[in-house]
């Protein structure tokens, strides 16, 4: 297939050319998806931890629901947030449709279930292992949850990366709530969709290669931090 060679050529030109338009798109992609990953962690991690250590009626149902929501189609989330933020919708007066903020909200909704469900599993496993010890030390459940979060922090970092990866890779939600506006809400994935529409397949695939490289670099950075931290704190 000749297209692949052209795509790598296009990717090379994009990376070495340092096109300011592309730089802005890459930066916005990172801003939106990192913000969403952080926001989703602030919501999803405490939620997952609480479900992991607490016992209450309907808990199993909630876990099943949370696990199922990991498969939320981005386009459905996009549509939901669009209808909420539209001028005709309940939050229309905010006037934030077609802004990066709307994109962050949509991606946050998309990945909160992933972070909550996976951290629930991780923390619950740790809870099973250490609950006797923690209880004998007289720790309350929520206090214990905090200790467990700290204990499993390296596994939780991987969960954060999974959430970020999902956010950075999706196109359905940001396309609808962002509108793919040039210079305002255009990110890597919506640019790829646009170039595909224009029939410029090598450029689209080239952008895809740049996106994947970016995600690899971020993951490598995270691995490095983890390595250093593990060596220092054990």
């Amino acid at each position, binding site marked *: 297939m000749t297209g692949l060679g052209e795509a790598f050529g296009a990717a090379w030109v994009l990376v070495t050319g340092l096109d300011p338009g592309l730089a802005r798109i890459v930066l*916005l992609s*990172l*801003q*939106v998806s*990192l*913000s969403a990953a*952080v926001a989703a962690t*602030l919501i999803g991690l405490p939620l997952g931890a609480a479900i992991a250590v607490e016992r209450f009626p309907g808990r199993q149902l909630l876990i099943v629901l949370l696990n199922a929501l990991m498969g939320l189609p981005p386009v459905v989330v996009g549509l939901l947030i669009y209808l909420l933020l*539209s*001028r*005709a*919708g309940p939050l*229309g007066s905010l*006037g934030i*449709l*077609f*802004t*990066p*903020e709307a994109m*962050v909200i949509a991606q946050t909704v998309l990945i909160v279930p992933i972070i909550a469900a996976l951290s629930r599993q991780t923390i619950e496993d740790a809870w099973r292992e250490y609950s006797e010890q923690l209880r004998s030390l007289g720790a309350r459940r929520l206090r214990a949850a905090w200790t467990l979060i700290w204990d499993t922090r390296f596994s939780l970092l991987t969960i954060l990366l999974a959430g970020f990866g999902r956010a950075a890779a999706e196109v359905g939600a940001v396309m609808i709530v962002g*509108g*793919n*506006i*040039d*210079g*305002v809400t255009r990110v890597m994935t919506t640019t790829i969709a*646009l170039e*595909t*529409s*224009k*029939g*410029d*397949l090598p450029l689209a695939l080239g952008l895809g290669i740049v996106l994947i490289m970016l995600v690899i670099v971020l993951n490598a950075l995270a691995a490095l931090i983890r390595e250093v931290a593990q060596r220092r704190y054990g």
Partner: protein
Amino acid sequence: MALSRRNVIAAAIAAFALLGLQGTAAAQKNFITVASTTSTEQSGLFKHLLPVFEKKTGTQVRVVALGTGQALDMARRGDADVVFVHDKPAEEKLLAEGFGVQRFDVMYNDFVLVGPKNDPARIAGSKDIVDAYKKIAAGGAPFASRGDRSGTHAAELRLWKDAGIDPNTGKGSWYRETGSGMGPTLNTASAMNAYAFTDRGTWLSFKNRGDLVIEVEGDKKLFNQYGVMLVNPAKHPHVKKELGQAFVDWMISPEGQLTIAAYKIGPDQLFFPNAKR
């Protein structure tokens, strides 16, 4: 030790939050939101046109490119200040519902019927689009339709009506609705050697043609008129009336019209200004 760790985490969170806010700060200037069509965006017209207007007025124009049907719905919901689309009957319906102020003709180009070089329906060079449609349906040659309520889709459906054919009877065999934009539909047509109905602008800027060529062009019925209008502030009070109207006025002004006429891909002019003023 624990304190410093916590500080590091707090600093990291603050840094991410700042990253988020930076985008917000850049967005706080005069802007209008224009609901428009994929054909104007993907043909590259806006990239040529908007910098001229933005430089002159300092108003940023944010274009959301959708099919005409969706773009008009955006106006109905109040999510756009201006609509710039190409389906006159649907635009007039929007006006009648009270969601638009006044509609102006801006420019036109034309639709063309593209298809595979080997031309199974034997219509190449014809100037009669209705006759070509009849031959495609009679021979059951594959035809890729937008199927997305866009202006181009509406024009395509009007022509089937003129031909006295209900294309839905060909669903599942020769008539294939892609339910997507012009570009993706052309990608599909190119991959399965189907006929497709497209505006000339998108066709000229489309790069993945494969074996597709223009089969039918030049019929009067292929005329494609674009119109612009301000969304009615009486229905949606937050509509940016002055800025939006300034954009509408500029599009139909001599300067706007000349700028539209100057947009070319190679030797081909893509859009022909025809505002009545």
